[in-house]
């Protein structure tokens, strides 16, 4: 499955547009982690636990989108966008969407 946030692929042609596909993931760390991050908030620096959390959510959201694209017979998702928001304290949501297409070589 080809994933890209461009709209043009030199050497390939869009045979069919299959519409919007999307995936989202909401995750949070356990309370202990939240507490430790609260302490880290005094000293500053990177919150590695949350960076990992976002990385995992992003992977999962992308995977969900890819599965959806696969199920409707696409072989690529173009013009992908990510969107993030914080839903509640310590929980983050990642939403990813794009256009599923069937690509053929020119």
């Amino acid at each position, binding site marked *: 499955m080809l994933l890209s946030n461009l709209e043009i692929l030199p050497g390939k042609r869009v045979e069919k547009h299959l519409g919007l596909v999307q995936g989202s993931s909401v995750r949070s760390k356990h309370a202990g982690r*939240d507490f430790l991050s609260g302490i880290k*908030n005094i000293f500053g620096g990177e919150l590695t636990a949350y*960076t990992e959390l976002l990385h995992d959510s992003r992977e999962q959201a992308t995977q969900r989108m890819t599965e959806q694209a696969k199920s409707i017979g696409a072989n690529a998702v173009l013009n*992908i966008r990510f969107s993030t928001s914080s839903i509640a304290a310590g929980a983050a949501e990642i939403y990813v969407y794009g256009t599923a297409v069937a690509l053929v070589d020119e």
Partner: protein
Amino acid sequence: MNNLLLFLGLLFCGWFFGRRAEQRHYKSIIERELEFNALPAIASRFPPTDTAYEQQLVAGSTVVSSDYFKSITAAMINIFGGEVKPFEALIDRARRESILRMKAEAKSAGADMVFNIKMETSQIAAGRTGAIEVLAYGTALIPTNVVDIASAPNVTDMNVATPA
């Protein structure tokens, strides 16, 4: 009295460790930026059409926390208004770090450049003061016409010809 001591202690911890973390982070950012200069990140939507490239989505994210000193200073600046310098540095660090992580992913995929860079910033409510999260993503262009020495017949022909 105890409360005041606690406040001053926290303020000092924030100032000392926060400043140290920031200086270290900036040093490492600048070093890696020099290293990744060869792999440009371009905000254009249109990829070059002269060479054959394979496309791959790459992303990098960072969550950077504010420190106690920054938060208090920012709250004070907020009363009088004006430029909130402590938070500018914080968000700058997060953005540059995210781009570097994205480039690192692109480099490990063998890319030449990254196109159509987009940034997402959001606040994570962790603790009292908060942290910011930055996600940078784009499309890595991986050249497909790299000359493969093992499969190029001309190269082996030449090697055979020269010693004789």
